[in-house]
């Protein structure tokens, strides 16, 4: 078990190193340190100020190692900062990135945690219901609606919900965020509704398939033959034995709750880590962007390992070697 975890960690380190390298190359392929500086300082700033800004942010060094610059280069500094968790300051406004992460995590979790739970609480019962009424019009309608729901872009859900629910029906604010407990519920209502609706099609289809596969197994037939009620079969037997594929999907999603939701946060004006990432992309803020990508890749690797370990806990037949 320990050897397995260590092996996975080593693979993970390789993945993270690769991600950081590709991010660096891709970023500086489409932009240049001059563009980063100009984005931060504005177009009317004299060239001397641009040069000074680049020097103070380390962007005046060569991009890659070379003779005389094996450590004094941007790639080396990029890795050094990330591996020592020294995230530094934002290129856009010089604010400390670590502080921004701490501040952004709360709004992100305020959105993603309830969204995650609501999605589970909606999708799993609905999938059980559809599986329960398998081969009836409920099942067929459920599949059709799920496929339709999956086919629609989340952007359409967002814009449509903002217009219909916020603008026409006046149920909830169109966008915004406030940490005041009195206001936070009304601000989260619409993004939660959109998040659940946008994800429910895929979730219901997936969980339904899992439940149906499980409900066709021999032990379920035996339970039915013994006169066990259908509701009890679904809740006690089918659901419990479907946990492995469910866990794969669920546990892998948990680390990313900390990263927030790029589109929901951005469109609904929630100042979480997702919105910060979008801002960093739009603002050529390499320092923030690499931090977010780095944390994202670390959480992904961690999520993979936790998922594998959880198999053994849920199903004693699974042995991790």
């Amino acid at each position, binding site marked *: 078990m320990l050897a397995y975890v260590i092996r996975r960690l080593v693979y993970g380190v390789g993945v993270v190193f690769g991600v950081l390298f590709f991010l660096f190359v891709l970023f500086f392929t489409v932009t*240049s340190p*001059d*563009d980063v500086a*100009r984005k*931060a*300082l*504005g177009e*009317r*700033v*004299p*060239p001397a*100020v641009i040069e*000074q*800004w680049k020097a103070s942010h380390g962007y005046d060094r060569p991009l890659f190692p070379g003779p005389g610059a094996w450590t004094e280069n941007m790639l080396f500094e990029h890795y050094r900062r990330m591996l020592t968790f020294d995230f530094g300051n934002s290129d856009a*406004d*010089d*604010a*400390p990135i670590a502080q921004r992460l701490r*501040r*952004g995590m709360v*709004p992100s979790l305020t959105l993603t945690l309830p969204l995650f739970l*609501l999605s589970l*609480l909606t999708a799993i019962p609905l999938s059980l219901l559809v599986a329960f*009424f398998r081969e*009836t*019009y*409920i099942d067929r*309608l459920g599949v059709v609606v799920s496929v339709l729901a999956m086919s629609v872009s989340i952007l359409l859900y967002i*814009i449509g919900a*903002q217009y219909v629910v*916020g*603008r*026409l*029906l*006046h*149920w*909830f*604010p*169109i*966008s*915004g*965020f*406030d940490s*005041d407990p*009195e*206001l936070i*519920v*009304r*601000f989260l*209502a619409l993004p939660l509704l959109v998040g659940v609706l946008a994800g429910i099609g895929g979730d219901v289809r997936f969980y339904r398939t899992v439940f149906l596969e499980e409900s066709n197994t021999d032990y379920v037939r035996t339970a039915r033959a013994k006169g066990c009620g*259908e509701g009890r079969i679904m809740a006690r037997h089918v659901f419990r034995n479907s946990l492995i594929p469910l866990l794969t999907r669920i546990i892998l999603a948990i680390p990313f709750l900390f990263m927030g939701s790029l589109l929901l946060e*951005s*469109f609904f*004006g*929630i*100042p979480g880590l997702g*919105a*910060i990432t979008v*801002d960093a992309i739009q*603002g050529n803020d390499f320092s923030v962007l690499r931090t977010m990508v780095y944390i994202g890749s670390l959480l992904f690797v961690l999520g993979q390992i936790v998922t594998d370990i959880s198999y053994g806990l849920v199903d004693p037949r699974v042995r991790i070697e």
Partner: protein
Amino acid sequence: MAKSRGAWVALGLLLLVPGLTACTNNPYAEADDQRKILYKSYREAPRTLDPAVAYTTSAHAITGEVYETLLEYHYLERPYVLIPGLAAEMPTRQEIDADWTLYRFALREGVLYQDDPCFALGGEGRTTREVVTADIAFELMRLADPAVNSPVAEPLSNIRGFAEFSRRLVEAREGDPGFGERPVQEQYAAVGPMEGVRTLGRYGFEVVVSSRYPQILYWFAMPFTTPVPWEAIAWYDGEAGRERFADHPVGAGPYWLALYDKHARFVLEANPNWYGVQHPEWRAPGATYPDTGEPEDYAAGRLESSVVGQPLPFIERIEFRREKESIPYFNKFLQGYYDAAGIIKESFDKVIHEGALSDDMRATGIALEKSVEPSVFYIGFNMEDDVVGAPGGDESRKLRQAMSLVVDTLEYTRLFSNGRGVPAQSLLPPGLYGYDAAYRNPFRQLDVERARRLVAEAGYPDGVDPASGEPLRLTFDTSDTSAQGQLRFKFFTRAWRQLGIDVVIEATNYNQFQEKVRNGAYQVFVWGWFADYPDPENFLFLLWSEMARSKGGGPNTANFSNPRYDALYVAMKARPNDAVRLAEIEEMRAIVEYERPWIELTHSEAYSLYHGWLTHVKPFGMSFPMTKYTDLDPGLRARRRAAWNEPILWPLYAAGALVVALLVPAVFTFLRERQ
């Protein structure tokens, strides 16, 4: 089983209760409904709020409220007029010699900064202190400090000793590495004061400025020259959990920044220490609603007797909420949750009909205000180019004149900015001294036939270059590679094709474009300029040869050089607004009209919408906020919001009924099969 069913019901109720209580689209606390809170939005947070550095409209929306300046602009008068702010009166002016002029200011006594913990550095338990002229001198030294990176150091270098102070500071820092570690106020004190800046006690202040730059006074109406307490710089250094000064302004203005969450919300609260609040008996011009304005201000109700002479400010709080997307922002304005808004392009046709507010909008009490910004957009010719520039002599001039005659600005604004923008006839926009609304530039009137004749006289009959036998080929150089940009530039190249001239768009990235400009390898380009201050000098210098891009990277990107224009510019620059100055401006305008280094396009025009509960609003045109003059009626706002935003719940009930209708047959089927 009963227990588990109960748990599900409880969970359902748990979700339902907040769901029902949340059923309102009001993004603000109901307790604030009756307060005079002005709601505004912002798209991107400013990079910095340091008044020495902040140079964007979004930053000035905050720094302009928090920092008080020696001078400021009259709210209603146009052309723009300077009035005393923190200064007790307008400064006196004294010519020292032919080169230098002295301005003497008297600061109001007893003006306090906002309350702030930083003032404890000056004495235990202190939360504020008096504004003194040493704070203005300190800020001027900050502007000269290369480490501060102020973008306005160049114009301020007209102060005697400004550059010298900067040099001494750099030398001291380079000579002693420990010097730069000392607090900045100690560093400034150690290198000595700026020669041209002298404080006379706590309230007197003299500044000696180059006589060639009387426009310096405008800079004393901008946050760059505001008094800044040294305690704020020393305290807000980003260490030990304290914020950075760039995020925590400390000023003596009508508002103070109570909350600054860059990603969501800013809150400005009325400053109880502001001199207008502390000393209403002064009836200071900058703290009292004005009693004069333009004729249309009377008609618009901005000079009603109920408001004239009232102490400022009227608004108790200004809230900025972040709106990254334009459609939600505009929808919230229509719901009454923002008090004012620009017009987004997606809704332009719905809001504006034939240049006026649509009937639907007017019915809701929304008002439209149009304002022309002190700006100019133009197509420029590189006057050092052999084909289109001065080396080509009379022929090149005729070519430029011809190209100027076929660019249809009205059509251009109709296509690309919903008709917003005043067609430009000269460099000077409306609202500035020297602008003549009746003036018509003969080379800016559409005349294709005359243009064809001029092209032929220029040596290109039907646009054909006799050297190659092909249409004359020019390049239109730009750093805008966007699809929208390409469409705009094609509008121009199509216009010139009527003359047989083939203008090729060469769009490159910014760095490559800058490289072309540095090397003079460009012919035709498009550019724009927003004024720093409302003086004709700030536009006419754009064609002064000393400002040529090829000489020192100046803003004269056309590299225009004309000795007569230069002489007139130097003479005009130092004159007050009198008949002689007007004559000089008109002669400069005539030179530009004939020489055509530019094809003037537009002066940009802003359309602003205001709800009926906002009163005495007048668009200012420049980037500095004038919120202290604005008032609002919170009762009317609350009533209209309630009427416009009543929740419509029937779709919720209909959806519930649909779910039940779908499930009931299935349940019955299941029960029947089980039996």
